[in-house]
């Protein structure tokens, strides 16, 4: 049943993508891209990739429309007609088709959705589950992986977030200026 919902949503996505390509009003395209992201987020949620879904929703539906509108207000509201030169269009179509076929070909190698003996579950995960609590002394396995086994990775992530926070502060905080 859940699979049926995913299929219906993917059909909606394809219809929407075709419409997006054919539309010429940039405003409509910016708005509809938000819908695309929302549907994509639902698909991710149904496929159990909740974190990916959340990123998609925040970036795609939350901030992209705002940024696109800002860009449109600085440029123009309508897309110009695509080039009439036939060669240009063929090169574009060929690039898109080749990239699409390559991506689809790459998915044929992937293990099935939710299969228990996929490589990712057999390689190092059992070791962490077994020895994690004794080796790190942390009872929660997620915390053990993040703070101990992947400690340097987490340190890098925290550095990135800290830098982003400082940048936002520097942008929003009008140091000493009182010209409101």
């Amino acid at each position, binding site marked *: 049943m859940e699979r049926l919902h995913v299929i219906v949503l993917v059909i909606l996505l394809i219809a929407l993508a075709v419409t997006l390509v054919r539309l010429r009003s940039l405003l409509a395209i910016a*708005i509809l891209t938000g819908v695309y992201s929302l549907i994509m987020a639902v698909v991710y949620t149904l496929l159990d990739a909740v974190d990916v879904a959340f990123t998609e929703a925040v970036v795609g539906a939350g901030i992209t429309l705002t940024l696109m509108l800002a860009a449109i207000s600085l440029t123009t509201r309508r897309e110009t007609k695509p080039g009439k030169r036939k060669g240009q269009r063929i090169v574009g179509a060929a690039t898109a088709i080749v990239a699409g076929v390559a991506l689809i070909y790459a998915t044929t190698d992937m293990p099935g959705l939710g299969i228990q003996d996929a490589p990712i579950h057999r390689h190092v995960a059992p070791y962490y589950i077994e020895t994690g609590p004794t080796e790190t002394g942390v009872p929660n396995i997620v915390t053990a992986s993040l703070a101990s086994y992947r400690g340097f990775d987490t340190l890098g992530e925290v550095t990135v977030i800290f830098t982003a926070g400082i940048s936002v502060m520097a942008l929003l905080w009008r140091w000493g200026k009182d010209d409101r």
Partner: protein
Amino acid sequence: MFSLATLLVVIAMAMTLIRAVRGPTPYDRILAVNVHGTMTVLLIALAGFLTDRPDFLDLSLAYALLNFVGTLAALKFFKHGHLGEEQ
């Protein structure tokens, strides 16, 4: 029961999508997108119950908060023609 509700919500999503694509005015599109966002929230909540994991509810609450950021930006753009410039 949940399955039927989910299916109905998906159909409603398709209908709002048609309105968003056909327009004709930007306001139709904005409204359709907003309703579509509400449908997304409902669908994620229902999917949580459908798969016996009601903790998806938190996720749909967060989506509901996100939903009107874009709508507000778009409405501001339509009213002023820009998103705030130097006065």
